[in-house]
């Protein structure tokens, strides 16, 4: 019997013929326990349910409904599909059982195939009109080998916008982007180890981030790849130590993993040396720390929950993750040394989630703030509140964050700033608002993210709508809108990159 059900479900999932599907539905309905005679709903007694299988009742009394056939106490056996608990009773088979997808399913390979295309909505003299044009195949596999868990995930990409097809696993450029390749195990009950290529995230922010100094992929974010690509992978060893007092995470990255930053090849930017916007005509030249061990990074987090408050303290020793310095001799952008210290708290408040995160970025090559070629130290603060609003609509969530970036030694910075370089404010204020709503029985998700700086007078707006066609297919459309009063501010410089995109994904 289970085999039959599996076959049916397989047919259902294939949805080969609507007529067949509706026929199966009727058949499925017929398998339900029949309602007792007279179930119409007028009188209370008539609306009483018949006893379901497994709750065999006693004799019929008065106008009370009798037990449906096959539900006598002596026969508590369940209807088809509940008779053995075999794995495939419900038959949730991976969809698309043909060819390659079937091969993938049989070998435990998961992933997706996605086409994503986007275009700038205006001419950018320094970039191509197309902002994204890629076919991406994600393949994931995992294995438990004794006590060690192994996982790999990689993307294979075809993109006519590539400057080079040769894979560079660090920057993710080229036709292979290795996302994960790690081993994890617990050598002791209180110890977790995860070593290899992995995506790492911590802290209370999901943009901006303060104490999460793991690499970000700003290019992916701005050209409209899926949200997961905002995080670039790290090649690191993560050690988790768990105790009743507090938990500790230590991450060692033996070779510096920079952000996948804006370098001008896909997104144009303001080049302070040229004193103008630049892009493919003048891609940013960088001198990136790339020695194993010598150019390593350390990240640490200590955290515990205290009475509903999630408290954490953070430390980081490494480099600015995106270019934050300049070598006047070579003309290359640099990644000066950075130490960061911070803390965060998160709790439930008024039915929502309130969070606070602070961090001090200690720019170790410019402690006095008087080196015009290295960014000054900063204090960063993020306060946020997020809540569902069932009072207005169901599956509707809104969030607001205030972010402050305060430059240390602003006077020294101003005094030593070379002529012609736009002056940055001592305080950069940003208001981040987001809202999301699920529609059409959660088939559709509409969301908007806005990042607005009143001090920089610029704004970034990211609307996104995704529609789940069925369990396999998802259609997404969205936009990245940049606007600013000046072409050199944090967001304002990206103005000509405003783009719209659409993607179709087949998950398997």
């Amino acid at each position, binding site marked *: 019997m289970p085999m039959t059900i599996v076959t049916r479900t397989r047919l259902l999932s294939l949805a080969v013929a609507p007529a067949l599907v509706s026929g199966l539905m009727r058949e499925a309905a017929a398998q339900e326990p029949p309602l007792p005679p007279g179930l119409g709903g007028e009188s209370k007694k008539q609306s009483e349910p018949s006893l*379901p299988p497994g709750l065999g*009742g006693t004799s019929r009394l008065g106008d009370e409904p009798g037990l449906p056939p096959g539900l006598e106490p002596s026969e508590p056996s369940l209807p088809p599909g509940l008779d053995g608990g075999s794995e495939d009773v*419900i038959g949730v088979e991976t969809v698309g059982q043909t060819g390659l997808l079937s091969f993938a399913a049989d070998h435990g390979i998961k992933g997706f195939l996605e086409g994503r295309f986007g275009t700038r909505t205006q001419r950018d003299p320094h970039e191509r009109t197309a902002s994204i044009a890629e076919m991406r195949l994600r393949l994931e596999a995992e294995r438990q080998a004794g006590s060690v868990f192994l996982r790999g995930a990689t993307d294979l990409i075809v993109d006519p916008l590539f400057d080079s097809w040769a894979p560079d696993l660090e920057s993710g450029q080229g036709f292979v982007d290795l996302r994960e390749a790690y081993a994890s195990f617990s050598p002791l009950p209180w110890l977790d180890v*995860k070593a290899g290529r992995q995506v790492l995230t911590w802290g209370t922010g999901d943009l901006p981030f303060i104490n999460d100094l793991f690499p970000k992929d700003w290019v992916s974010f701005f050209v409209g790849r899926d949200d997961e690509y905002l995080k670039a992978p790290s090649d690191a060893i993560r050690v988790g130590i768990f105790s009743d007092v507090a938990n500790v995470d230590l991450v060692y990255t033996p070779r510096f993993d920079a952000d996948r930053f804006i370098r001008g090849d896909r997104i144009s930017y303001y080049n302070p040396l040229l004193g103008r916007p630049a892009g493919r005509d003048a891609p940013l030249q960088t001198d990136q720390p790339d020695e194993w061990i010598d150019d390593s990074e350390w990240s640490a987090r200590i955290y515990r929950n205290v009475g509903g408050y999630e408290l954490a303290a953070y430390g980081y020793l490494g480099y600015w993750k995106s270019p934050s310095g300049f070598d006047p001799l070579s003309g290359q952008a640099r990644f000066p040394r950075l130490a960061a210290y911070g803390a965060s708290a998160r709790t439930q408040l008024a039915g929502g989630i309130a969070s606070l995160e602070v961090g001090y970025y200690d720019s170790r090559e410019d402690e006095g703030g008087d080196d015009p070629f290295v960014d000054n130290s900063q204090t960063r603060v993020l306060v946020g509140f997020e809540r569902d609003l069932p009072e207005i609509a169901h599956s509707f969530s809104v969030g607001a964050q205030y972010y402050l970036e305060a430059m240390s030694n602003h006077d020294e910075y101003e005094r030593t700033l070379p002529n012609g370089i736009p002056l940055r404010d001592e305080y950069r204020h940003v208001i981040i608002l987001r809202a999301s709503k699920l529609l059409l029985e959660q088939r559709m998700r509409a969301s908007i993210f806005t990042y607005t700086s009143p001090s920089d007078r610029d704004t970034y707006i990211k609307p996104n709508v995704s529609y789940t066609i069925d369990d396999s297919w998802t259609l997404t459309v969205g936009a990245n809108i940049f606007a600013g009063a000046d072409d050199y501010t944090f967001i304002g410089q990206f103005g000509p990159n405003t783009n719209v995109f659409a993607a179709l994904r087949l*998950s398997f």
Partner: protein
Amino acid sequence: MTTRNRPLWIWALGLTAAATTLAQAVPRTAHQAAGQSAAQSAGQSTAKEEPKTAEDVIAAANRVCYYQGNDRSAQVVMEIVDAQGRTRTREMTILRRNTERAEGAAGELSDVECCASEQSFYVRFQHPADVDKTTFMVHKKPGADDDRWLYLPALDMVKRVSSADKRSSFVGSHFYYEDVSGRHLDADERTLVDTTENYWVVDSKPKNPTSVEFASYRMWIHRGSSVVTKMEYKDASGETYRTYEVLGVDEIQGRKTVVKAKMTDLRTKGSTTVTYKDVKYDIGLPEDLFTERYLRRAPREFVK
């Protein structure tokens, strides 16, 4: 062959000394489960004298539905069918652990006490593919806001999520979050409207009508087991717009357990059928399983 296939009469016979010869034919697992059943029924409403008030009835039903065993694991499949007959499937492992040891030697709680105690839930999705490994964790706190977290594996992100919206769809199904983890007993006023041969019939009205979409709901609670077999939600005009029906009950480790149920939205004509497979009680889920550590690193001995 698992113990839950055993017909009811085997449990009954297993409890009597006279059944020695028959019991030898019963697999060992059935013996153990029957033993548990006997031990546990002493502390359970079904074996006590029948509840008298609507509150007692509901507390017993709530306990059977949400609190049986000290912990439980189940493989859950939701088939969501919309008005056009299109089907979507959600498959997940749900682990649940009662913070208070409500059964066994460690402590006996009354039904009301039991339903006021805290629980933790760990829900790890396997299907559809785009939510594979996404994990949802709840620390349920009756009388206060639950703590909820969501783990997004692709970002390695642990998000804390708001719990204000209890009556919104759970993962696109016709079940609400509150249906999955249980509505708080103090939220409604109740009346026992009828007692029939098989059922207690209880009507409930929300104490705070603005917080919910229903004006009232009626429950049919099976007298022999305290299993809720049917619910009807009514709007302000008294019209039924949403129904819950149990399609299958199984006896698992001596506990009457709903293994198949259906929620129907009569307005949209959509419905969700939920099936609980591989239900196991008292598997020894550790308390620290419901922490950030195991959101990031799935406990593979307990989840798929």
